[in-house]
């Protein structure tokens, strides 16, 4: 049978093709690359995809091809799973969570690839479901450990509206490893070439007419050229007419084949077509042959397709509704009993048989839920409701599913609307349940005040059972805690706990209430009592042994300890124990990952970086996905920035950005502070400034801790720009940052005591950086910052503060004090492995000729390189001074840089003049430069 091979050579795309092949091989730091080809229908995207795939060397690249379906409600991960199935790589989709599923898909992809690189080619990505998009981001972030290049085609038309890919591509295109190629129509010359290729020598005016009529769209141009070649009368002015006249020319049986394929979901396998088209075997094959020969249908190993989606769209309107319904019924009948529920549901629906569609729709919804495709499941549940009459007894259950799946998807409005319908059902859940669910949905929608009222309503319902009361009170306590109403939260939590005493099996609520109570007490300056309550919650969870209870309780305890209580060592211990406890039972993967992230962040703060590194390694081995992956990657990136491993830091930041392209605003701000931190070590103060500015615009004005981190980063960037002299200082940025600092200072008093301590620490750092910007050389402000962070047991900012303190001390020529500060900072930085910080301490020490270890020789200053010629007569210090003179610095500036007095500089300069036998600075500089250049 005819293959899909295109008989027309590719015209006008040679450069694009080369570039795409090059870009696909040009992987980013994570070892992955992607090219997204966008363009209008018929512009040749699919063709380009096939050409690239054909170029791949089989020994080095494994190619996997899939296409997304436009049936709206395809099953989750359809294109990738279908591609894997074609490779006979079916796999078990049962698993404990969505992350495990992604992991299994990655494993299957790795098996296909073997030791080769994998090229995943995806056509019609605009129809991809949410889970497929998430899988792609997971893989591109390198989380699946597949050496992967993705080549995908997206219809440009769909990106203009509200399509989620619009934002995804906008975020991804900032990465070095992702390219978005906009495929434009052919120009006049290329169109002419295409016409000549197909129709042979033609009149220039004919070719130009084709260009004009096709607008350079290769698909249309090709068809018009064929008409030209075949001497067809130009009756047809539109693509629609061209194709309809082609179809009309087909023999009758072939006509039927075309219609059947048009009604089916591509690819249509031969067996299925045979079941739908009532023709004997031989005749069917002859009919398919005719349809292929007329270039309407193509045939591939997995079945038949129309030659182009544009053809399908044309034919769609040409089939009578009755005819169409008959075809769909035959499809549905042929598919009944299979496991492709989504496809079956589609055919029953289009056949107009609502009752028969319903079971497959429900089955499709459940199948989607089992693959964690909650967005798809929600659409199936909604469809099921559309297919059910108001008085159908099954409707109540469907409403419950629809509301809950909408809630899981963040479709708050719909969740609430479905819940109202559910509340109106005579056989619906009780009033208390409805209030509880409504409150949960409202809270998720950010409507806290109404949610609070709803929880209170739930508690006030006369028929409310004690168990429901406990649940309502526990949730209410949690909500109040988030609203910062600690006293009210504590009260409600106590109420829940008292009620729960007499109840069996309310562990989850007790854990929730205990956590709320614990935090509320900690925030109200009774940390010990708070701690005791949460420890109690851990005990309750240990008793129940349920993974959610355990995970939740350990998480709260670890968060309380490492957060507001600042008992870092203990918090780390608790987090590790919790993770180990869950790992023993092999449950609660997401909780384990979050606990490991807390432990790693705690270890980072206490300066045990090597240990934190090991912890994050262990976490990464668990193959996190989604928000968990982002947490772990951010924690690891923080370490890389501290260690000064730029490449690894950039890799992890890119991975975070890739995952976040799918959404997840909460993590953007930590990512920005890391970007700023990294940029500063690299001396790119303007990049740091931009990251901080974006952070400031996107931070809530009441989040003083985050504002503190950002303001410090921002001021530090300006201070370093000020002292470095290469990047100009931005006065308006300083002004804005000062306003932020003032806002923090004003707000700090009303913050809860544990939060206040953190904000104070950042206020100290900000004040100190400001003094650096204003050349105040004030050791006291830095000393205060160092002490504050010492007290909090955070050695890293403390060591940083000591370094700056030493600089100011040296400015005042207090060498002994400066030496002590530098040595203390040095020891800390060395023990943590904070290489960039240590290097900067080393530079300052060398410039001031301070030995960092007591038994160490006074280090040689950084500048001197083996000198020859006239400079050989100078001492190292003199060469340093001369270097500064050559830069055009004044004695005063040189003194500041080398931490010596202006007068001493003068003495050095005098000696230099004598030794070089020169009389002016310009002459001295010339000697210096000439000898350096040699």
């Amino acid at each position, binding site marked *: 049978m005819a293959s899909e091979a295109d008989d027309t050579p590719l015209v006008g795309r040679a450069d694009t093709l080369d570039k795409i092949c090059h870009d696909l091989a040009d992987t980013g730091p994570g070892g992955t690359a992607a090219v997204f080809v966008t363009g*209008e229908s018929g512009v040749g995207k699919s063709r380009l995809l096939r050409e690239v795939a054909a170029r791949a060397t089989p020994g080095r690249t494994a190619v996997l091809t899939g296409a997304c379906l*436009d049936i*709206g409600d395809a099953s989750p991960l359809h294109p990738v799973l279908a591609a894997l199935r074609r490779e006979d790589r079916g796999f078990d989709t049962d698993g404990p969570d969505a992350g495990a599923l992604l992991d299994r898909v990655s494993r299957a992809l790795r098996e296909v690839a073997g030791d080769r690189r994998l090229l995943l080619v995806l056509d019609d990505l*605009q*129809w991809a479901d949410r889970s497929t998009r998430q899988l792609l981001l997971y893989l591109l972030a390198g989380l699946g450990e597949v050496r992967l290049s993705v080549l995908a085609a997206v219809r*440009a*038309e*769909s990106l*203009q*509206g*509200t*399509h*989620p890919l*619009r*934002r995804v591509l*906008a*975020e991804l*295109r*900032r990465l070095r490893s992702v390219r978005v190629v906009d495929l*434009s*129509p052919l120009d006049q010359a290329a169109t002419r070439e295409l016409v000549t290729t197909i129709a042979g020598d033609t009149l220039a005016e004919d070719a130009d007419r084709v260009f004009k009529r096709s607008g350079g769209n290769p698909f249309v141009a090709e068809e018009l050229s064929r008409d030209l070649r075949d001497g067809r009368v130009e009756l047809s002015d539109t693509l629609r007419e061209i194709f309809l006249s082609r179809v009309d020319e087909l023999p009758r049986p072939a006509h039927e084949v075309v219609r059947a394929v048009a009604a089916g979901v591509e690819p249509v396998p031969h067996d299925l077509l045979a079941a739908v088209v009532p023709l004997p075997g031989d005749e069917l094959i002859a009919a398919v042959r005719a349809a292929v020969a007329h270039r309407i249908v193509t045939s591939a190993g997995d079945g038949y397709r129309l030659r182009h989606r544009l053809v399908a769209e044309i034919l769609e309107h040409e089939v009578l509704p009755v005819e169409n319904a008959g075809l769909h019924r035959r499809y549905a009948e042929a598919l009944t009993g299979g496991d492709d529920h989504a496809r079956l549901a589609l055919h029953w629906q289009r056949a107009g048989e609502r009752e028969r569609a319903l079971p497959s729709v429900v089955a499709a919804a459940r199948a989607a839920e089992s693959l964690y495709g909650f967005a798809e499941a929600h*659409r199936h549940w909604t469809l099921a409701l559309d297919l059910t009459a108001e008085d159908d007894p099954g409707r109540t259950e469907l409403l419950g599913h629809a509301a809950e799946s909408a809630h899981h998807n*963040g*479709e*708050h*409005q*719909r969740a609430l609307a479905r819940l109202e319908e559910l509340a109106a059902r005579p056989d619906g859940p009780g009033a208390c349940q409805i209030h509880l669910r409504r409150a949960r949905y409202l809270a998720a*929608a*950010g*409507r806290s005040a109404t949610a609070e009222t709803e929880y209170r309503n739930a508690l006030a319902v006369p028929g409310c059972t004690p168990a429901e009361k406990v649940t309502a009170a526990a949730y209410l306590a949690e909500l109040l805690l988030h609203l910062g109403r600690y006293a009210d939260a504590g009260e409600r939590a106590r109420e829940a706990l008292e009620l729960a005493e007499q109840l069996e099996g309310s562990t989850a609520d007790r854990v929730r209430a205990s956590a709320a109570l614990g935090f509320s007490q900690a925030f109200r300056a009774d940390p010990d009592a708070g701690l005791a309550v949460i420890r109690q919650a851990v005990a309750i969870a240990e008793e129940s042994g349920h993974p959610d209870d355990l995970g939740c309780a350990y998480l709260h305890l670890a968060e309380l300890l490492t957060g507001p209580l600042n008992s870092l060592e203990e918090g780390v211990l608790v987090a590790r124990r919790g993770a180990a406890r869950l790992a023993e039972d092999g449950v609660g993967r997401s909780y384990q990952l979050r606990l490991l992230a807390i432990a790693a962040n705690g270890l980072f703060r206490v300066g045990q970086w090597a240990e934190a590194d090991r912890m994050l390694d262990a976490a990464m081995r668990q193959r996190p996905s989604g928000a968990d992956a982002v947490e772990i990657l951010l924690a690891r990136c923080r370490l890389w920035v501290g260690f000064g491993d730029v490449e690894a830091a950039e890799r992890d930041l890119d991975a975070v950005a890739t995952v976040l392209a799918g*959404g*997840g*605003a909460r993590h*953007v701000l930590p990512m920005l502070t890391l970007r700023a931190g990294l940029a500063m070590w690299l001396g790119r103060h303007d990049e740091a400034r*931009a990251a901080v*500015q*974006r952070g*400031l*615009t*996107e*931070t*809530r*004005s009441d989040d003083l801790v985050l504002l503190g981190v950002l303001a410090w980063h921002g001021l530090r960037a300006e201070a370093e720009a000020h002292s470095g002299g290469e990047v100009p200082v931005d006065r308006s940025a300083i002004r*804005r940052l000062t*306003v932020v600092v003032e*806002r923090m200072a004003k707000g700090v008093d009303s913050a809860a005591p544990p939060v206040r301590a953190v904000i104070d620490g950042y206020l100290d750092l900000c004040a100190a950086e400001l003094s650096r910007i204003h050349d105040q050389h004030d050791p006291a402000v830095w000393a205060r910052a160092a002490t504050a962070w010492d007290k909090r047991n955070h050695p890293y900012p403390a060591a940083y503060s000591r370094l700056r303190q030493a600089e100011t001390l040296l400015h005042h020529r207090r060498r002994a004090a400066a030496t002590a500060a530098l040595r203390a900072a040095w020891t800390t930085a060395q023990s943590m492995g904070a290489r960039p910080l240590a290097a900067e301490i080393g530079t300052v020490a060398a410039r001031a000729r301070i030995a960092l270890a007591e038994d160490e020789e006074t280090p040689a200053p950084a500048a001197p390189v083996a000198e020859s010629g006239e400079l050989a007569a100078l001492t190292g210090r003199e060469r340093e001074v001369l270097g500064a003179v050559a830069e055009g610095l004044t004695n005063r500036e040189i003194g500041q840089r080398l931490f010596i007095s202006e007068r001493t500089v003068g003495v050095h300069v005098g000696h230099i003049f004598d030794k070089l036998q020169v009389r002016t600075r310009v002459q001295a500089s010339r000697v210096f430069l000439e000898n350096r250049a040699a």
Partner: protein
Amino acid sequence: MTESVWGPVHQDMCALLTRHPEDVPAVVDQLAKLQDVLERIPPLMDGNPLADFNRLYLRITTSVLERLYEGRFADPQFLSRLDVEFAARYFDALRSFGDGSSGCPRVWSVLFTRMAGPDPRPLPSAAAGVNAHINFDLPFALVTTFDHIGSDPVDDNDQHLDYLQINDIFAEAIPDLRRGYLEKWQLLLDTMNGDLDDWWQGEVVEYTRNVAWRNAQKLWACRHDLASTAKERERLDGTAAALGRLLLSPLGTFLQ
């Protein structure tokens, strides 16, 4: 389309539009640079319909940025995303108009094609731009923003209240649009029928911004259905383009 869609500044425009600003400071920066380029378009240099609109837009976005720095929004992350996504649609329209590709919405083409002609009436031009941006771009920008931050357009939540704050900024920036011209516009629109008449009551910007919010909610409901969103897009484009044409027609002089 020939290479000189933007006349002598074509290259500068294209170079500028290769950038895709990712935060509000970058959007303001891009708009400011765009203003410089637009004011170099002959013959009037600083007075063409697009420059008039861009100036107004720059002013409004600068005010948004100031408020963000001042911490005056309840959900700054939402508002920043919205601002970036909103601006991206304006830049996209400029880009596709410059490429000569088919993607440029009609409502924008109406304004862009009048670039060359000196228009002595800055107000209707600015209004035509505001019309394209609010009546057409805004609902789509809202939907993509909500989709991205994992929330949905619910009345009276923090995001809605932040969104409404922008009305104040518009009011500060274009008091004339709000008042003097309103009665005249009303009169003009009274002579029209259908859609336009329905959504043209009360205060111009506030009202249309509310229409945008409602349209976003409508789009939100059908956002998974590519065919319906395309249809809705077509409808909004058609209606807004009709109004744009009206604003820029000789009748628009009536408003000045």
